[in-house]
């Protein structure tokens, strides 16, 4: 087990503007920690710095309380799974898995014992004599995991390991990796650009953008209480609907995108500053169908309809934005049809339009959290 601390870690190339700026982070033992962000956010660089493949420009990296900035990768007691799996094409599966152990001159019997253990765990017994090119994508992925398993390192780093697999296999491997991690009690740092992977796999998630930490927390917290606009739009599928909002002059309405007038209810709007430019957000599942309802009904034009069978995803034109709603069941809606939509103020999330910071998360989300606890 490993406990990892990042203190003011930064990275810059050739003394130019930093790729990563003062990252402070603690990863607990046995935790499945996900680094998520768009490409170019610096997440892979951070992972490679933890691995020791990339030099740390500033700050300290501590593993189990010891500063390891100066240690080469092999002395950090970790394993890593690469995006392209980094399998040796000229070696068989067995040789690939044992490559590191042979290189470190681990006892022969111990090698065989660990090989058998890993092969049983990952279902590789039949494949041991094959070359990587004779394997499917999922099988290669398993071999790469096997290499990590036999190393018996307490810390495992994964750099977008599922991005080369098709959607169905990816869902399977998500479960498999997660189970493996729990079973072996590994501390896992997992890099991905896919927020679904992040949400479904992580004990905690760190959202990274432009070399800055946007938010660290449990998946549900990130979903319900995004600290800023970036997290709000990055986490969740479809992304949170966002619109510009101002209060009307008499203060009785909140006007979203110059189109939707929401009556101001003091119990919800009391701590919202009236004089600032705002952005409001609402999740797709909170834009409810308004057919049989009376309050807060707005008529919106449907610009795209996706029938998914169990639910219907409808895109609406709202000012300059396109908002998406997800309604359970099958809804026969025509393109361009005006559809009544219920927009309850307790579902609204408020952001400062200039800084993008969260002002107030949705009332409903908080209530729900209380219920589950």
């Amino acid at each position: 087990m490993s406990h990892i601390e990042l203190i003011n870690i930064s990275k810059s190339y050739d003394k130019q503007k930093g790729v990563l700026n003062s990252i402070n982070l603690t990863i607990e033992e046995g935790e499945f920690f996900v680094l998520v962000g768009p490409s170019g956010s610096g997440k892979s660089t951070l992972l490679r710095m933890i691995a020791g493949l990339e030099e740390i420009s500033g700050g300290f990296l501590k593993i189990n309380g010891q500063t390891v900035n100066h240690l080469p990768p092999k002395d950090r007691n970790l394993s890593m799974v690469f995006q392209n799996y980094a399998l040796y094409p000229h070696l068989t599966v067995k040789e690939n898995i044992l490559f590191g152990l042979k290189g470190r001159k681990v006892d022969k019997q111990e090698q065989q014992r660990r090989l058998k253990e890993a092969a049983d765990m990952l279902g590789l017994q039949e494949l041991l004599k094959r070359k990587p090119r004779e394997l499917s994508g999922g099988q290669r992925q398993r071999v790469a995991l096997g290499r990590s398993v036999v190393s018996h390192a307490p810390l495992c780093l994964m750099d977008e390991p599922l991005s080369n697999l098709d959607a169905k296999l990816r869902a399977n491997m998500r479960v498999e990796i997660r189970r493996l991690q729990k079973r072996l009690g590994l501390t896992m740092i997992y890099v991905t650009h896919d927020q679904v992977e992040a949400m479904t796999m992580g004990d905690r998630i760190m959202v990274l953008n432009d070399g800055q930490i946007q938010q660290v927390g449990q998946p549900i917290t990130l979903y319900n209480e995004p600290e800023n606009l970036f997290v709000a739009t990055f986490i969740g599928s479809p992304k949170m609907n966002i619109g510009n909002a101002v209060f009307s002059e008499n203060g009785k309405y909140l006007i979203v995108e110059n189109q939707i007038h929401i009556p101001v209810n003091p119990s919800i709007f009391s701590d919202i500053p009236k004089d600032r430019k705002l952005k409001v957000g609402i999740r797709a599942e909170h834009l409810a169908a308004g057919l049989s309802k009376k309050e807060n009904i707005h008529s919106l034009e449907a610009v795209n309809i996706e029938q998914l069978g169990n639910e219907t995803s409808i895109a609406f034109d709202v000012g300059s934005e396109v908002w998406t709603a997800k309604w359970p069941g099958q809804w026969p809606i025509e393109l361009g049809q005006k559809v009544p939509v219920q927009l309850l103020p307790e579902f609204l999330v408020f952001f400062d339009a200039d800084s993008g910071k969260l002002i107030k998360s949705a009332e409903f989300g908080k209530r729900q959290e209380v219920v589950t606890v």
Partner: protein
Amino acid sequence: MSMAYRTLETNETYILQAERVKKQNRKKSFLKGMLFLLPSILLFGAFVFYPMFKTIYLSFFLTNAQGATTVYVGWENYKALITDPIFMKSVKNTFLFVFYTVPTTVVISLALAVVANEKLKGIGFFRTIFSSTMGVSVAAASVFWLYLFNPTMGLLNKFLEVFGLEAIEWLTDPKWALLAVSATTIWMNIGFTFLILLGGLQSIDSSLYESADIEGTGYFYKLRRITIPMLSPTFFFVITVSIINAFQTFGQIDILTQGGPANGTNLIVYSIYREAFVNYQFGSASAQAVVLFILILLMTALQFKLGERKVHYQ
């Protein structure tokens, strides 16, 4: 009934028409393809295929001093070659020469390429230096080495003198002449071989090394288990080309030793040159050329047969 008959008829005519159009298209694309190939066909025809067939033709004749055929002799030229001690010696010399130069060139170039593949400051300078012999002509390099080998003023003998060793007659001592020519050739070939091997090294996926680093394997383990196997297609190419080049060596022999001493450095191509342009025996020179062609063909075929199995393409 009549409707069905008519459609059948139109279908048949349609198929016929389609066939005709297909044939026309095929003809058109064949002509287009030939047009693209024409320049190479002309050049190869004039400078490779015609001389090759002419050589084979000449090898069955005796000729006069102008190279015109005089008497048809069948296999006589070839039979004479097998019993000719000078030619047999040149064959032996050639194989020795290949044996001296090819492995040494590849090993030295590999060492240089591995060193030059490190990410260090100013490594570009060393890469340029190591590959620079590629830009030196055979003649210039040979003259340069001629000075180094000079028994009295040459740098090599000066070195020996410093260490109190006896001077060596590099190019005139039968023990040393072939080695001296080999050394020159190795030096000249390093540039090309180095460049190809460096290219091969750089195309190896860096994540393979990173993974090995994390797993804690040593430098030489990585070299032996990753670098060498991953380079095998490059090795295969380099060795094939080097062997063919070594078989065809001429320039440095002509400038450094003229085949001497006592035919000690007389390689096949030089022997062909002497037979044709010194002795004016174009028939027997052609026979030698054909023998060389067959030798190279066999060597290359053998290499492909043996090499293919051990080469790992990615």
